[in-house]
């Protein structure tokens, strides 16, 4: 029985030329199916942090983590359990500004705490931050209307409490 799960992994890497290439090259070669990947510098410029969302079974996850640890630039890998994690991503969505739809769009935006970033005769651009599932829900609602463009950053995650990744060397 293979049960597919969604995993969130945070990967602390040495902030060096080509390190993202090394990590993604390994994903490509080993055929890991990545849903989402974000990367940025951290509080210490010597390190970058990669957040990866992927789907697979437990064996896939073990394999991914141990393959990651074989890369000398990888400092630590951490799996984030949903309940112990603060996760967020940002959505930008551009809707057609049509008279009949306008009121419903703005009501939904209000309910989801989406902000209006740009308003013109033809379009409305909104920004929303939050957990991926809330963003999915909001997009789903917007599908009743005319979506012109969508752009999302991908998820970033931090563990609740005081633990920090650079002090963890092994999962």
């Amino acid at each position, binding site marked *: 029985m293979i049960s597919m799960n969604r995993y969130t992994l945070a990967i602390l890497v040495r902030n060096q030329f080509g390190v993202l*290439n*090394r990590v993604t090259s390994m994903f490509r070669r080993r055929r890991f199916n990545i849903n989402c990947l974000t990367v940025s510098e951290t509080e210490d410029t010597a390190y970058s942090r990669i957040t990866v969302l992927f789907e697979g079974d437990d064996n896939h996850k073990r*394999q991914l983590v141990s393959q990651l640890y074989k890369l*000398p630039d990888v400092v630590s890998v951490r799996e984030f359990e949903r309940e112990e994690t603060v996760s967020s991503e940002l959505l930008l969505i551009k809707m057609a500004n049509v008279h009949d739809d306008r009121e419903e769009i703005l009501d939904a935006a209000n309910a989801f705490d989406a902000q209006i970033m740009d308003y013109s005769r033809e379009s409305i651009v909104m920004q929303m931050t939050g957990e991926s599932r809330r963003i999915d829900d909001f997009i789903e609602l917007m599908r009743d209307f005319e979506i012109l463009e969508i752009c999302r950053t991908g998820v970033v995650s931090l563990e609740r409490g005081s633990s920090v990744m650079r002090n963890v060397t092994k999962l």
Partner: protein
Amino acid sequence: MVLKGADILVRSLIDQGCEVVFGYPGGSVIDIYDSLYRYQDEITHILTSHEQHAAHAADGYARATGKVGVCIATSGPGCTNLVTGIATAFLDSVPLVAITGNVATANIGTDGFQEIDITGITLPITKHNYFVSDISELADVVREAFEIASSDRPGPVLVDIAKDVQVDRYDYQRRNPVVPDPREAAGDEGLAQAATIINNAKRPFIYVGGGALASEATKEVIALSEAIDAPIGNSLMATSLIPSDTPRFLGLEGMHGHYSSTMAIKEADCIIALGARFNDRSTGDRTKFARKAKVVRIDIDESELSKTVSGKVDLHGDVKLTLQRLYPLIKPQERPDWAARIAELKEFEAENADVREGMTPKNVMLAVNEHLEPEMTVTTDVGQHQMWAAQYLRFARPRTFLTSGGLGTMGFGMGAAIGAHFGTNKRSVLVIGDGGFAMCLNDLATAVTNKVPLTVILLNNSVLGMVRQWQRLFYEERFSNTTLDKRVTDYVALAKAFGAGAQRVTTTDELGPALEEAFASDTPYLVECVIDKDELVMPMLPPGGTLDDIIVRLGD
């Protein structure tokens, strides 16, 4: 002291204990070669005929000694020629450091003359690689490269150095050789469970792979086999780990393995896999492999434990050290029923053995055995001769059988044989087919120039035998592009043209004296053994088949 970048590189190599490097000069490494000239009393450079052979020679040096092998090539075609050699080392976990020069930092990315993105090209076939554009990092990068290449599961590391870095000057401080992180035994978790499974097993089988060889676990494996009365089978990569005359040793397992070894792993209720990665050539159809057996695995590379065959107990650690921890928990016992079954399997194997007379591949190998001495290194190329050598040659010491197991690189054998000699200072014996020989014969020049005591056993069947075997068995004898008999190459004249001795042998009567002369020669000597084009490697597991589908003889 302040040194040129190229001098810093060569001094760093010397300070890492590197005594010999293999390579080929060129525009982007001319400063490195200038430094090699300067330090020639402390480090020897062996010029090969082609960069690929330099990589294979560094690989052969590393396999034969366990030390890090080093090769050097210039930018562009020089370093792309290394790629097959680096990939060969990667697939077989060989500690290798490849040094390449590149164009000056200012010209990187502009497609300058002989510029190529070699770090990009080698990303998936190295443990790690570096592009050095800052001279202050050079010495540390070389040290780290040696450390990574030889730590944990060994593998190749590439260091690409921009031309300006080789020319610039910087302070160099001598440091002692990097000692790789000590390998560790597996922790307590699973150890007791592993012992329980082994102690309760009725039919345990010890399956050794390349990791057991890298860990130098010969003594520990034999001790375990004796304690639990279990047979030992090896993957191709572990050939020579267990001396051929060891009781309970069944030899090669898998696609072309010994019948008794392949059947024993099939019938085992417990497989103790030591540094073996269950490659498809060992298991046949993986989904049907050893479904009833409990698998206890020890591997230094955690990712191997979950990659293919799932183990009942996975112990993450060095094979030798983990076996030492496991041993006290093992209950010594005899297993007469299992031993009797193994005896039956061996009897069946003996009854079905190839007993033909004449110039059969087996008879050639048995004749070679008469001359093999424990300290000699055998290297092979890839194909039928590789399997015959693995099946029939006898070994007394680890690291004396070097073969491209993972990548299956034709053209590997010659460079590896030359490299092994520079590591051991002993005779190298190259067993090779006529197909593979055509891929690396140009390095006979290197062997002759350096007076390498090299015995070449050329099995000439005038075909690309392994592919022909598949065409015969699975492609209704459509022998597409595998017949070489229109080639009129005179191998004896060719060897002599390079300055090597040579003889052609067509009968077993000629074989003994020819081998006598070849093994007595202090310089390269080729014995061309003419064999029939339809010789087959048997037994054989058909591709995609299971261990049940083993073909012992054609017609069965």
